[in-house]
């Protein structure tokens, strides 16, 4: 499987931000907030820049970090795909990309959060991307 990697800001001309996923409470388990803070240097960057990651489909995704008064930063995250401005999204590809981003995130959070447990949970819940992963391993 192609990896998800943090990348520099791409050229945005001719692209649009297509909203795909939102998390209002990234610090519910604080180690997740710590992962994003460390990966994107958010203690220094603050709200100045979003984060960018590559994905298996080749689409680039933007991670927009949300601040909320009285809460540690980031409080939330929005994820956008960056397709060509007028092109519709391939929903199945986006779904696989998001699954890959979750795998990348869980691997980065570490500790008791393991990719194996994510895969097991996804398979138990019959998530197509997780079942695809499982089939590839068999």
């Amino acid at each position, binding site marked *: 499987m192609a990896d998800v990697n943090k990348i520099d800001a791409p050229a945005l001309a001719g692209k649009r931000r297509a909203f795909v996923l939102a998390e209002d*409470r*990234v610090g*519910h*388990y604080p180690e*997740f907030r710590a992962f994003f803070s460390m990966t994107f240097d958010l203690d220094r960057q603050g709200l100045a820049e979003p984060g960018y990651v590559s994905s298996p489909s080749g689409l680039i995704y933007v991670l927009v970090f949300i601040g909320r008064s009285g809460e540690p930063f980031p409080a939330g995250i929005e*994820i956008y795909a960056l397709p060509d401005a007028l092109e519709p999204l391939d929903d199945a590809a986006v779904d696989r990309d998001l699954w890959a981003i979750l795998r990348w995130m*869980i691997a980065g959070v570490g500790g008791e*959060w393991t990719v194996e447990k994510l895969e097991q949970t996804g398979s138990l*819940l019959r998530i197509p991307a997780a079942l695809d992963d499982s089939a590839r391993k068999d």
Partner: protein
Amino acid sequence: MSAIELPDSMRVQWPWRARSARVNGWRVSYVDEGTGDPVVLLHGNPTWGFLYRDFIKPLMAAGHRVVVPDMIGFGLSEKPTREQAHSLDGHIANLTALMRQLDLKKITLVCHDWGGPTGFGFAITDPHRIKALVIMSTWAWPLPPAEFHTRVMPWRMMHAPLVGPYLLGRHNALAARGVYLSVVDRNKFKVRGRTAYDAILPDQAARLLTWTWPRWIPLDDTARAFDRFAWLERELPKIDRPAMIIWGREDDVFDYETFSARFKKMLPQAEGPHLVTGRHFLQEDSGPEIAKLIVDFLVRNTTRG
């Protein structure tokens, strides 16, 4: 009114008129049928009034008014699209507002899952409206959590940051799959129930409460709902009303030995536990049997009273 259309096979089982009211800033949908002292049936996550489809007719036939609210965020009620719209206190206030608006008294409150903490919160707030309590697969104390709720796989992973919105939001996994895994007779459930829980949450944003509620379950003493649950534990035993405990033998979320025993200790006057076939969503496996238990319980207590 909601534009959500139930499949015909489900509509046959749920012929009740959806009424609505404004409560605490939100539109709540509820069923209100029959006459007599009210029985209020409270569901939890990720279900809605449909969970009680086998209860309404027998309770009406036994001379009761039956009120079944869909919790704000579920069923045919309004579904806020921001996590910050939901809190345990807010949901208690939602229910309290509806009960006061309908001016219900002599209520038998039937509580399941999050219908427990919200229902108990209302009962403690307005005890003069309560006649009896029926308690099923729920909890009312801060710690310890159910062992199931401490596990990363699958419970905590299911609602982890970003994972929750993906699994339970994009894929509706709790309503479409989680309930299925938490009944005993899955074949019967596939035919009789599954579509009704899946179809009522058609859009990603509409499913928000399915991953928000799990984040309100206290896992340690830093939890944001810790104090409210401590209040529930302290105050619920003061509700000196007839009570009945009903549990699923196969419940692997709130195991009956631990959880029904703790309720029995809190409410020593409670009957039971009456054990029925059922995992967490015991109404799906034993709906008519539970309805009869409630009818008989109310007959006994009316006779005594």
